[in-house]
């Protein structure tokens, strides 16, 4: 095991542990803080995958903006602790989730060993490559995302402004 492998294992344990924290902490604030740790861990994993730009965007967009938004909304609600954080048929839902997880893992792990796609390293995808692809091959999708964000902006404003019910 090289240092690369050790770093990978540490990062994956941190990310997965924090992700488990997200769904198991009864207090939603702690869930959100755990989510921030997961996002940071994944950003570090993008670093190990030589996707530096994505790592930065992951930190800026997810850890820096989306999760801060979550934390902010939760703090506005001031939910210290929920009386019953997990849904009624807690056991059965966990059971279902566990079965789905086990089945998927049973499918994924053999499949991933069959289709072992590790190619020889030539050169990593640089930010310049990423920008070139984004603004040539995927430029239509890029524009569509722009329109989507505009629509979301208007929609979020409309939702936030509405007082509920029909207002004159």
């Amino acid at each position, binding site marked *: 095991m090289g240092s690369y492998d050790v770093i990978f294992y540490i990062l994956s344990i941190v990310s997965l542990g924090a992700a488990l924290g997200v769904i198991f902490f009864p207090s939603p*604030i702690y869930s959100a803080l755990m989510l921030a740790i997961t996002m940071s861990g994944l950003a570090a994993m993008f670093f190990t995958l030589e996707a*530096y730009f994505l*790592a*930065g965007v992951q*930190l800026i967009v997810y*850890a*820096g*903006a989306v999760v*801060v938004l979550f934390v902010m909304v939760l*703090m506005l609600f001031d939910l210290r602790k929920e009386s019953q954080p997990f849904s009624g048929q807690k056991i059965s839902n966990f059971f279902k989730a566990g079965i789905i997880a086990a089945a998927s893992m049973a499918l994924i792990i053999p499949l991933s060993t069959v289709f072992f796609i590790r190619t020889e390293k030539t050169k990593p995808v640089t930010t310049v490559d990423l920008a070139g692809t984004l603004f040539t091959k995927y430029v239509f999708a890029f524009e569509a995302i722009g329109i989507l964000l505009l629509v979301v902006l208007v929609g979020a404003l409309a939702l936030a402004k509405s007082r509920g019910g029909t207002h004159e």
Partner: protein
Amino acid sequence: MGADKVEIAINTVKIAIIFLMMIQMVPLLVWLERRGSAFIQNRFGPNRVGPLGLMQLLADAVKFITKEQFVPANAVKFLFLAAPVIALVPAALAFAAIPLATPIHIDPFHLLGQSWGPYTIEMQSVRMNVGIIYILGVSSLGAYGLLIAGWASGNKYSLLGAIRASAQMISYELALGLAIVGILMIYGTFDLNKMIEMQQGPFSFQFMGQAYEISWLPNWGIFFQPLGALLFFIATFAESNRLPFDLPESEGELVAGFHTEYGGFKMLMFFMGEYGHMMVGAGLVTTFYLGGFQSPFVWQTYDYMLNLAIAHHGPGTVASALTTGYFLIWFSIKVGLLLWVFIWVRWTLPRFRYDTLMDLGWKTLLPWTLGNVALTAIVLYWARAM
């Protein structure tokens, strides 16, 4: 030249030294802030303890440490104690990526009957080719310290301050990120060291296929991107929660905002975080727009200084270290001047109202930064296409 244990040890010590340097700047800045505010407001300021009141820092530190460590009854204890540390981390991490000077080259030498290979010590904690992205990403985590502090205090003023802080930081991060897009387009790199290299020499550019050179101006980013520099500097004020953007702790409305319940050393750590953000901001402005550690009006600086040092001390480690020291002094001068501007602005301008703050962020800074990006793109297209 492989990385042996000595090199790793040197680098570890260096990282600690750079961090401690940043922390040690805080008392000095506090002194400068108090004396500077007194100067601006025609008062004396702290002048009793030691010459010019310089020993006041030590007295303050002793006072901070010996205060009672107090946790309010309503607080969430773990998060309350963790928040000051979390507030300190992003600034420290971001500062690690800013290049302070040229690297020191240590020649091979003999010690204890062994020969030690040549070493190169970078004058920054981590040299990375995506420095800007890293700094922006890490400093966007700065909102957490304030949010957690405000919420965990169990005090409504703290909570209001924290929510203001996070909304403000998210809003101004947009302007901050877009303001440097212009400079990124011109230099075409995320690497801070390369960026500094490109700012060497006199002001020169290509336009319509012709090369122009103005020999009395340095080749700094601020002359290519004056608007971008101004917008970036304004946004760094908001990011470090300094007046006129210190709505999170505006004492007229919110007692002391997010750190109302904090006292003693915990309060000092918030201070360190704030001054750390200031230093990162000043360092970034220096690196992007003011030529980094390069000195103005001495073109081909690095070779010139190195040759000068070699002429006096002969080639080797000493010459390299002297050159590094020269650049470090220039970096400190530039950052110091910018920090003084931070303090100057704080004691000159009044605070914004919250709605005017948001208006400035979203309706003024954002359109101007977008316009700057578009203008830069058009000019670059014309200038480079011809």
